[in-house]
């Protein structure tokens, strides 16, 4: 049976060149980067080379990159680190309602510490209104955190407009770019953001390696104190192989990004046009301003989990939204925020493509998915429609 991986927003396979680059640092070059002898110097040099490569991917300076272990850590670091650093100036933070849990829960944690958080709504496509940002800013506002691209609905925010407002008001802007970096060109100079989170496994690098970009001159309180690693901003002996892998993946991504986009965008368009021919299926997220390999839908009358299982049985691996929401059997806050009714949000499914996805894969998918929907609707208690039951009325438009 065919095996088609269509969950690239969850993670990606390691690029073979990345694995080759990492291997020596598991074996011969095992030195501690702080050690003052040969193996230590080699490890230090490898980390600094990886920092150059990682910075180059987003057009940053090497010294503006702090390596971390995950996007979640970087998001926690950005919110808590800036909140504590600037609490003397103000205690108000703005985030959108469609942030990743690592931003939302950090914001909730800060609320318990006495900070005030505004959770901005989004429109039906998942876009934050820059005017709403402007209205939310007050004299106490110190930080705005807006997700760059949503892994659940694929929408790419208009960050430059939001940042223009932030800069006018003297407020720092952090963006969670985990789903963006490696999938679209990202340039911190052009975006003029102050902090940016991104993770290696989103662009064929290893898990356990991520970064927080902190614009030069920005004060931040470390999450982890201890040694002098990462300029004293993130203590702990470095995960050298993973950092080397992130650097290599960054080099490859810089080289191949446009090719990847040109490859997956038409495949993604094929999925969207084919799937929207099925009755009572709705595209979630922005129709154009979305990640090039991202197609997300809600399918009426059936549950996302059932679709995932049946698709997996046919060799197609996909997701029903955020990993956290899927495991918690909870309606996705992102879908609720874009106005999808609760009963429809259960029928969420997300397909994300990568460089190894082929047109044959998509042909197979386009044949298989309608069959899966059809079969599940036959056995669904809602097969005659919501109207025949006491479920709430669907208001979303196709």
């Amino acid at each position: 049976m065919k095996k088609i991986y269509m969950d690239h927003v969850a993670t990606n396979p390691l690029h073979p060149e990345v694995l080759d680059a990492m291997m020596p640092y598991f074996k011969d070059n095992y030195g501690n980067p702080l050690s003052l002898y040969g193996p230590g110097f080699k490890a230090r040099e490898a980390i600094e080379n990886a920092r150059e490569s990682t910075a180059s991917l987003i057009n940053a300076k090497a010294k503006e990159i702090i390596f971390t272990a995950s996007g979640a850590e970087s998001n926690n670091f950005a919110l808590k680190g800036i909140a504590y650093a600037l609490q003397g100036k103000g205690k108000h933070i703005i985030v959108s309602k469609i942030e990743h849990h690592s931003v939302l829960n950090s914001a909730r944690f800060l609320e318990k510490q006495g900070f005030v958080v505004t959770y901005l709504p989004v429109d039906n496509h998942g876009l934050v209104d820059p005017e709403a940002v402007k209205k939310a800013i007050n004299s106490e506002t110190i930080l705005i955190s807006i997700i760059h691209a949503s892994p659940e609905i694929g929408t790419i925010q208009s960050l430059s407009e939001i940042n223009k407002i932030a800069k006018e008001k003297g407020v720092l802007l952090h963006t969670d770019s985990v789903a963006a970096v490696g999938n679209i060109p990202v340039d911190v100079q052009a975006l003029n953001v102050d902090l940016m989170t991104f993770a290696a496994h989103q662009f064929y690098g290893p898990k356990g390696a991520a970064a927080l970009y902190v614009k030069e001159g920005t004060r931040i309180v470390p999450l982890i104190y201890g040694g002098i690693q990462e300029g004293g901003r993130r203590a702990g002996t470095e995960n050298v192989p993973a950092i080397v892998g992130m650097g290599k993946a960054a080099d490859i991504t810089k080289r191949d990004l446009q090719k990847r986009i040109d490859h997956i965008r038409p495949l993604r368009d094929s999925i969207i046009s084919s799937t929207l021919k099925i009755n009572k299926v709705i595209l979630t997220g922005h129709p154009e301003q979305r990640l090039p390999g991202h197609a997300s839908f809600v399918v009426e009358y059936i549950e996302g989990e059932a679709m995932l299982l049946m698709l997996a049985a046919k060799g197609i691996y996909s997701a029903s939204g955020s990993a956290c929401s899927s495991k918690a059997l909870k309606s996705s806050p992102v879908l609720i925020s874009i106005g999808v009714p609760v009963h429809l949000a259960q029928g969420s499914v997300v397909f994300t493509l990568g460089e190894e996805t082929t047109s044959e894969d998509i042909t197979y998918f386009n044949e298989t998915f309608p069959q899966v929907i059809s079969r599940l609707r036959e056995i669904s208690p809602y097969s005659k429609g919501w109207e025949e039951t006491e479920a709430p009325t669907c208001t979303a438009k196709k």
Partner: protein
Amino acid sequence: MSLAEAHQLDNGGIKFLNEPIKADSETDVIYMMCPMHLLTLDDKVKEIRKGQVLSILTDYDGALEDIPEWCNKTGNEFLGIYEDTDHYKFFIKKVKES
């Protein structure tokens, strides 16, 4: 009495400044803990020329002892400390080329 003033008494008089000195280069290690103030100082002094002044901003109290001592050891001139609202500004004059 502030912690800085207490150190002044302990050490028989660290030079406190009423106004900051004009520095040729400034570096900020606020929120960084030991030994980042010394490592950064060592790096930044290398970047300036003999006779130039470096200011280093820190909120680390241990710097009140460490930085004057570092200047003694390395032969650079410690010009004094300016106590800002939530941090210290140390001023160091580079005495010899490194």
